[in-house]
């Protein structure tokens, strides 16, 4: 049996549940999945500014709070917090360990950065969606699979840090290593991928992003416990969470997560396998215990997916609230005024009425008037100054718009676009860099 915990489901995830898992989970491995599609392009920007950076901005905080507990409990860490710079991230971990007087061995998995290859062969790639020739590309990262991570585990490293890898592969790799599975046993690769997919979003398996009071009640969400899996050599697993933690692990929460972000459930493509979720079977085995059996897979795809980050300019936004009688009428007048002031200067101005139309674009609005409405105006541009202008015009509604507008806020953000493409497997070579703190320092 192999015990794997899931300690983070996105870059900004909470840290306490991971610490609790490391302390009390009797885990073999803790996995932290922290890398969203655009995160790596933003990280690449930071690396350009300073080559020591480019790893996850929360790496230091996470490692400082987790490393002593992990080492003490003999739990190995696998994480994609390397982002655009796994070697830089590994060096930082070594630095932290030295400072804390801890012995640690860190293996960095590199080779996902295919930017030079993409730039060299730019014309020959089909980008989905299309990317015009003039658009500046910031980053290009191929999705590595479990077979890139297994050699890092084999070094005996306490911490394995990667850049872009397929999320389920972070979990599949320790299964391959522990059980001695052949990476060409696609049935097992498929089963392991199902378990990895279920775990990769942390709390989303254990009642996070699930509760709907009166309909889908979940208790103790303020101390939501993250999931762990007890994996068997045949690729089945028991999913559970620590006793005393909040949340819920039920057939319903697991079903939602099994289908989360899945296109074709019979062909879930990773670098390791084309996994089949249509043969997965779920069974309750007591409170907060779900047995996962079945699932399978076919041979891995001949090409690897790569995410390309590009500079998409800036987005400017402004918001202001109207309340009381005719709130919607005054908000709509404000929207028209700002639109008239800006429309000839932007390709598109988006006007939303928060509380009425902003999330579902006007579909299904309930009858009756909202008591308060927040106007939101947004637009994209390649000029920084122009992006700021949108928020300024919304703010100016204080003295230049309808009666009773309050709480104006303006926002301005850089936009990194992401497109995907396929690259030949041969163009991607995964490598390792291992570093170590051998003696207890200080």
């Amino acid at each position, binding site marked *: 049996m192999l015990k794997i915990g899931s300690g983070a489901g996105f870059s900004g995830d909470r840290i306490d549940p991971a610490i609790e898992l490391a302390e009390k989970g009797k885990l073999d491995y803790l996995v932290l999945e922290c890398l969203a599609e655009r995160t790596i392009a933003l990280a690449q920007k930071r690396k350009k500014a300073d080559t020591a950076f480019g790893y996850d901005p929360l790496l230091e905080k996470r490692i400082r709070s987790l490393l002593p507990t992990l080492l003490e409990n003999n739990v190995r860490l696998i994480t994609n917090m390397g982002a655009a710079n796994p070697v830089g991230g590994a060096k930082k971990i070594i630095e932290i360990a030295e400072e804390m007087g801890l012995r640690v061995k860190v293996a960095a998995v590199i080779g996902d950065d295919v930017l030079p290859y993409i730039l060299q062969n730019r014309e020959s790639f089909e980008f989905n*969606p299309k990317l015009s020739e003039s658009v500046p590309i910031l980053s290009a990262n191929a999705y590595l699979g479990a077979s890139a991570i297994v050699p890092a585990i084999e070094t005996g490293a306490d911490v394995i840090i990667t850049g872009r890898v397929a999320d389920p592969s972070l979990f599949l790799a320790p299964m391959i290593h522990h059980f001695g599975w052949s990476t060409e046993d696609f049935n097992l690769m498929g089963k392991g991928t199902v378990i990895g997919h279920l775990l990769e979003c942390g709390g989303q398996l254990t009642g996070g992003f*699930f509760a709907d009071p009166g309909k889908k009640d979940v208790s103790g969400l303020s101390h939501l416990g993250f999931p762990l899996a007890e994996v068997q050599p045949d690729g089945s697993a028991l999913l559970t969470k620590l006793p005393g933690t909040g949340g819920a692990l039920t057939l319903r929460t697991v079903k939602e997560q099994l289908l989360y972000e899945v296109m074709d459930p019979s062909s879930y493509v990773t670098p390791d396998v084309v996994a089949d979720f249509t043969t997965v079977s779920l069974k309750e085995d007591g409170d907060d215990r779900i047995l996962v059996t079945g699932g399978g897979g076919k041979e891995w795809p001949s090409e690897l997916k790569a995410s390309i980050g590009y500079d998409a300019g800036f987005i400017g936004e402004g918001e202001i609230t109207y309340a009381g009688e005719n709130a919607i009428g005054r908000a709509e007048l404000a929207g028209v005024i700002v639109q008239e002031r800006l429309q000839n200067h932007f390709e598109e101005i988006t006007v939303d009425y928060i509380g009425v139309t902003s999330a579902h674009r006007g579909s299904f609005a309930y009858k009756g008037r909202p008591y308060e409405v927040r106007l939101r105006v947004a637009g*994209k541009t390649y000029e920084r100054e122009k992006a700021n202008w949108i928020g300024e015009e919304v703010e100016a509604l204080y003295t230049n718009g309808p009666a009773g507008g309050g709480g104006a806020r303006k926002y301005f953000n850089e936009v990194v676009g992401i497109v995907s493409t396929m690259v030949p497997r041969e163009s991607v070579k995964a490598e390792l860099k291992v570093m170590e703190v051998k003696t207890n320092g200080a």
Partner: protein
Amino acid sequence: MARKLYELAHSRAGDKGDVLMLSLIPYEEGIYEALREQVTADRVKHHLNHIVKGEVTRYEMPNIAALQFVCQGALLGGVTTSPGMDTHGKTLSYALLEMEVDL
């Protein structure tokens, strides 16, 4: 009797680029067949016509009594460049649950 899907089923939205995925999971597995008959890809496409610009494909998961709808062109270009409010489309599971079925 006309009933909102919200009463009968739950849903989670996911996104990949400009593609929105919506699961539909009945609270009682026994009504999976009825939902399968009534909540077709065409009906979902019609129901979400202000939101989904492209095709809707439905996948059936009898093994867990659930349906999955994959909606193309639904996220104003996708999470990274959308000028919209909910760039991921995470709230859109509840747009699906606004649909009515006869049960």
